[in-house]
């Protein structure tokens, strides 16, 4: 099936945070004021950015960045939420497939089966998953944006756009065929360049095999707090692609070797006994 995606145009975003509200409302994340209990305290910390971080109850958040360029202050807004990677670190490390690739390309999530290991948190190049966690018992559950495919709350299966896109008043968020959005995103970047934004770029076309959330940016990704070239970590590869298969082989060979030893040794013991 043709892949779908979200295109976010930072140059059209006014950081009204309608998407944050719509996301919480649709997904029943009713936390009105972030509390200490969930790990995020609400206090004045000198920014309109609110809440200050993602949490198990906050799957999307507008990031506010202030930079000085050419003696002028610029106030930049970006969307901070799951990028729905094609090569997703979180999917690679999830021990039981609670995180998986949806047939339309995004990274869907089955919360019921989550073991709470938190491996996805450390493997995500964008620092997106969040979990509740009891440090002593280890009981935990992860949460992140599911591209509105949570069971029972699945907008995509209904043929609707995600809640954040639905609510966006400026058209900064759009949903559709990935190939179409890619084309339109590139056209928009070109238009920005023509307007004098020489560093304008489309983020997400090829990063990690292609993201299913792409950003039109008027300046370098780093300025917006995005990694210039997100990578699957070396540890993820060493663990999942090297040591885990080695482990299966070592385990299998050990058992086979012992079985063989038993057959040979028993035959010899019997032979000795007959003599």
């Amino acid at each position, binding site marked *: 099936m043709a892949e779908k995606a979200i295109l976010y145009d930072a140059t059209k975003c006014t950081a009204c945070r309608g998407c944050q509200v719509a996301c919480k409302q649709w997904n029943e994340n009713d936390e009105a004021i972030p509390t200490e209990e969930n790990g995020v305290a609400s206090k004045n910390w000198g920014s309109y950015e609110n809440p200050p971080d993602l949490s198990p109850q906050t799957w999307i958040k507008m990031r506010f960045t202030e930079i000085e360029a050419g003696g002028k202050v610029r106030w930049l807004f970006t969307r901070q939420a799951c990028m729905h990677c094609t090569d997703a670190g979180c999917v690679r490390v999830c021990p*039981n497939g609670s995180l998986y690739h949806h047939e339309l390309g995004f990274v869907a999530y089955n919360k019921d089966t989550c073991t709470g290991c938190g491996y996805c948190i450390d493997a995500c190049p964008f620092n997106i998953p969040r979990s509740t966690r009891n440090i002593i*018992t280890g*009981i935990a559950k992860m949460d992140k944006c599911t591209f509105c495919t949570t069971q029972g709350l699945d907008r995509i299966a209904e043929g609707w756009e995600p809640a954040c896109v639905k609510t966006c008043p400026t058209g900064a968020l759009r949903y559709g065929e990935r190939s179409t959005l890619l084309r339109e995103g590139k056209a928009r970047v070109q238009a920005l360049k023509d307007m004098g934004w020489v560093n304008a770029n489309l983020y997400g076309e090829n990063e990690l095999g292609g993201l299913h959330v792409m950003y039109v940016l008027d300046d370098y990704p780093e300025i917006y707090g995005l990694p210039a070239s997100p990578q699957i*970590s070396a540890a993820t590869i060493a663990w999942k692609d090297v040591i885990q298969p*080695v*482990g299966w082989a*070592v385990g299998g060979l050990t058992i086979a070797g012992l079985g063989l030893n038993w057959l040979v040794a*028993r035959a010899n*013991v019997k032979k000795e006994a007959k003599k």
Partner: protein
Amino acid sequence: MTHHEVEKYRKPIRILHWIHSGAFVLLFLTGLILFIPGLGFLAEDSWTRVIHRIGAAIFIVIPIIYLIINPRSVARGLKLAFTWTKDDIGWLKAAPRYYFLGDEKDMPPQGEMNTGQKMWWFIVVVFGVLFVITGVVMVFAKTTASPAVLQWMVFIHDVSFIVSGAMLFVHIYLGVVHPLMTDAWSAITGGKVSTEYAKKHHAKWYAEVSKGKE
């Protein structure tokens, strides 16, 4: 022929062995389900993590208790396990023929611990320490350590798991299943082995313990 026996493992050692190995098996099984994707569904809702932690607490506390009540026994065990002589090299050379074909010809006489047992001690001590360090970091620094540190901790934990897990199979196999290890099981359950077994498998040790008795 009357059946003569000698004591191989004293009772405290046997209790230590069984509690510690019970915790190890618990940790092994609750870890294994994260390691084999087909078993991962068993780990749903964190309950196996709770067991892994209870197992870990036992795994850490029991040797410490033993160390406090009988430091000399621990020191003696470590000394035995880490003292290697030319007989150990000889054992390594002769072992395949012995364990497969039952050919004892080239087997050098062994002390209280044979070379294989020494290697198992080495693995238990080294990887036991690695398990504890990496595990404790994953428990207590889960929300504070950097993602890279936490990921490498899982990696080292897994390397320890693979080496010690495979050797655990060998250890259990030799203790319980191998046709020639007739008295190993009774040694670690009831504490005693027959004199014939002791002479055959731990000749140097038998010479020591039987000195002055005959």
